[in-house]
């Protein structure tokens, strides 16, 4: 036992001098932390771009990574409710439990959309705090970056100047990029779209797209043929120009409806790594806008 605690102390003291260990729940937060912390953080990304973040399992590897984390950066709003509580509990790491300084939730710093007025599972897998897919609007990254930087400084005060410089640089570059994307996306204004999962309210809000219908009858439920036929009827009255699908979602429902209604399917990367073009945060939106514009043709 004594030698065990000696090893433990050694490992802990090593950690104290090394960079921050960051456990990012989704790739977009890993990418943002990378922008803001540079080489001051070792970042582990818990979910891949082709995984449905609602349905990840509390795998042993995730628990082991959370055990060594100094900071956990997640979306929140119950997006990770199926796995993160177990990962944090089993990690035995008191620095990153909910409510401690090592636990960061992005949704707390943005204006949430689709906050349900009632909570009833008859409405499907609804999220009480609102729709958690905030990463599809680049404007949301500005307040999150600001809050995340404060948290990094709180945990690693020795590098305060570096974090502040990086944040300022990010803010300038990101704001310029948003202006560029908005200009590029001008033709998309008012375009009518179908969405496969209720996962794009922030994107449609940002680019002023008009959402006609959702292919999932209720959030989290697979579309049935009967329900898709109903949507076909809706489309006769209210035609749509394209159907949006996140890269991690199954292709069948959108392909089915696109074929019958002669629509373009637009597969969006949805997060960093979701397509070859989306290799970082900038690439994510460059590629998203390019794919949407192509969908208009």
């Amino acid at each position, binding site marked *: 036992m004594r030698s065990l605690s000696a090893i433990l102390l050694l490992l802990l003291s090593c950690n104290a001098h090394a960079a921050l260990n960051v456990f990012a729940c989704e790739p977009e937060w890993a990418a943002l932390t990378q922008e803001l912390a540079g080489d001051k953080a070792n970042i582990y990304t818990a979910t891949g771009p082709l995984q449905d973040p609602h349905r990840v399992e509390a795998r042993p*590897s995730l628990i*082991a990574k959370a055990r060594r984390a100094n900071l956990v950066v997640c979306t929140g709003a119950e997006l990770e409710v199926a796995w993160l509580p177990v990962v944090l509990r*089993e990690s035995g790491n008191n620095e990153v439990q909910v409510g401690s300084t090592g636990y960061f939730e992005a949704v707390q710093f943005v204006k949430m959309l689709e906050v349900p*007025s009632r909570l009833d599972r008859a409405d499907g*897998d609804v999220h*009480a705090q609102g729709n958690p897919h905030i990463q599809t609007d680049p404007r949301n990254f500005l307040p999150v970056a600001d809050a995340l930087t404060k948290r990094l400084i709180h945990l690693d005060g020795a590098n305060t100047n570096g974090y502040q410089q990086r944040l300022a640089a990010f803010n300038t570059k990101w704001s310029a990029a948003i202006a560029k994307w908005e200009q590029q996306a001008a033709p998309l204004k008012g375009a009518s779209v179908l969405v496969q999962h209720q996962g794009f309210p922030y994107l449609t809000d940002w680019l002023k797209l008009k959402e006609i219908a959702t292919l999932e009858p209720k959030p989290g439920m697979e579309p049935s043929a009967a329900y898709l036929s109903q949507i076909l009827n809706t489309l006769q009255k209210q035609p749509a120009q394209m159907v949006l699908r996140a890269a991690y979602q199954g292709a069948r429902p959108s392909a089915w409806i696109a074929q019958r209604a002669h629509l373009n399917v637009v597969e969006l990367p949805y997060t960093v790594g979701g397509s070859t073009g989306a290799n970082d945060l900038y690439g994510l939106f460059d590629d998203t806008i390019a794919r949407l514009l192509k969908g208009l043709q």
Partner: protein
Amino acid sequence: MLKELSTSAAIAAMLFQSASSFAANTGNLDNGFNPAFSLILSGTYGSVQRGPAIPATGFAMNPNPGHEQGFNLGESEMGISASIDPEYRGVATLALDPAGGISVENAFVQTTALGDGFNLKFGRFFSGLGYLNEQHAHAWDFVDQPLVYATFWGNQLGEDGVQLKWLAPAETFIELGGEIGRGRGFPGTDTVRNGIGAGVLFAHIGDDIGIEHSWRVGASLHQTKRVAAESTSVPDVNGSPVTDLFSGNSQTTGLDFVWKYSPDGNMRNSYFKLQGEYFSRKETGYLTYDTAGVNVNDTFSVTQSGFYLQSVYQFVPRWRAGLRCDRLAPGVAQVGALNAGNVISDYAFNPTRTSLMLDYSPSEFSRLRMQVANDRTRQGSPDKQFFLQYIMSLGAHGAHTY
């Protein structure tokens, strides 16, 4: 009865309170589910050709959970959990017996602030041994538990005691754990004395291989001193059922593994899961043969073992199919000279069973299942079994373990 009624009233009050706080919190939902309250509703239809009360050959001194025939309301399970304060979290799971009455399945407190990889749990909990033992019935992949769990642990080993786990600060998941308790669940004999009734040690190692594969392997050791463990209807050499008593040491070792594969790591679309567990139990002590009759006491020792291997395949979203193979070995008992003419030492038969299941989950919160089994657990009495099952969960839906 009175006690039961008051418990039900207390639970109803709790339910009401939870529901009303839920409603009041709509809009400001940080603690919309505090305490998190959940209810599992389940039921089965069972069709078996042979009497389910007959135990597997060679396992008359082990539990036999059996199967319910016809339409049957399964145990509805109620769960309440919440943080107690920044240091502790509390969990209670109550099983509502279809015949009336409530039993406490789990009621434990868990630390959240020990840090350094330590987790302490105390109260009533499912032991961390093996892989399946900690999983609640609603998370099982089949209608019933594998034979080795049914006969070695009475489906699941529940303990009243303390559990300490430590997770190593390593890249790979390496977890060590130990438990001490009163020996409440079989093979423990629920000791009513000072001291420790049973102890468990376990170790788990796990990791990912790329984003598509994940695995965990484990080893466990369970030790208890059995005191006057009574078994009724045990067949003897003449074939007549008698009541026997066993006292002595019981030591069980176990190995378990699970491997999961999912294309692109996307469990929602499709996945494949393969798991297996092996247990071997050595019991050494004294057996009293036929307590109601000749009542002869002499030495007795036996090593029983068993394993299962199962796979579950989600071939499209919502649909899963599964196959499970079970096998038990009753072992050859060393029977003291006084009982050599009474107690069967070698059954020369290995109980086996093959089960196939298909389930459909309209949403994350509901599941419908069909299962058929070819049961060859009782020598000379093969059985074809058929089951239908529904499992529905409402309220807060806690995260599942791996």
